[in-house]
């Protein structure tokens, strides 16, 4: 929990810094987010590669677990569908389109802004950032409530990068490859599903 609080503290610090215009992302002159993400992925990769025990454990995982991306997509859409029926102010396809971001906030909000306007686009951005934050903060609780696959499923498209270290420490290193495979597959589905729900 201490680790999650530090993460939130850094996020809030960033919001304050951005709000006060102490610094902007453009000021760095290069894509610092991408650079940091690339370095993070290198570290995660080295961690996975150096731990052969984790890779050996992976072979003991059931093949049925390969259905996890499909489970995440269907579960998310089911949850959003139930919510969409309850909330009156937004149409069902729009809510499903926002849910189809699976945490991939940059791409989904750009898509939805383009198809449906800036208002649902903003909701998509916030909802998908929230999904990432829920996963970062709630991973230990999700593990207790619904087992080791829940943090991966909750992470959605981010289970291959930003939430991967949390998943690795909460669910276990033996779930890292499943998590990457899951993130990659869900990530790939985002443009197709968002476009589909925006067009109906």
């Amino acid at each position, binding site marked *: 929990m201490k680790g999650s609080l530090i993460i939130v503290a850094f996020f809030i610090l*960033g919001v304050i810094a951005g709000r006060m215009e102490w610094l902007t992302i453009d000021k760095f002159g290069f894509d610092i987010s991408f650079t940091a*993400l690339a370095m993070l992925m290198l570290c995660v990769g*080295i961690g996975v590669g150096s731990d052969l025990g984790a890779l050996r454990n992976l072979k003991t995982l059931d093949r049925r677990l390969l259905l996890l991306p499909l489970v*995440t997509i269907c579960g998310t859409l*089911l949850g959003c569908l139930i919510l969409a029926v309850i909330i009156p102010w937004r149409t069902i396809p729009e809510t499903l389109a926002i849910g189809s971001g699976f945490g991939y906030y940059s791409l989904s909000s750009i898509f939805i802004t383009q198809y449906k306007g800036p208002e649902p686009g903003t909701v998509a951005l*916030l909802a998908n950032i929230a999904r990432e934050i829920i996963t970062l903060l709630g991973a230990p609780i999700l593990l207790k409530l619904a087992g080791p696959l829940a943090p991966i499923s909750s992470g959605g498209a981010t289970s291959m990068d930003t939430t991967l270290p949390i998943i690795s420490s909460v669910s276990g290193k033996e779930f890292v490859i499943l998590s990457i495979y899951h993130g990659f597959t869900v990530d790939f589905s985002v443009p197709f599903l968002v476009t589909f729900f925006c067009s109906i």
Partner: protein
Amino acid sequence: MFTIILIMATGIGLGWLLRGRKMPFLGRITNALIWVLLFLLGVEVGGDERIVNGIASLGLEAILISVAGVAGSCLLACGLWRWARSGKEVKRK
């Protein structure tokens, strides 16, 4: 997207070459990078007038949608885990 995958694949290769060596600094670097990324995410959110103004009115709806998505997917993931575990014993630490 593919650049990131390629970088990670390189890392896996490097890690395999370095296997057996203790790298206590790796965890610390990983954590520091996560903090940097979350800080930058905050900077982006805080610097965008559209998002700051929207947080009040649209934030609740966004949270509802994300919670609904997380709840639905975790419910099914729980079912999948039970199904996968029912056939044979999956080794867990």
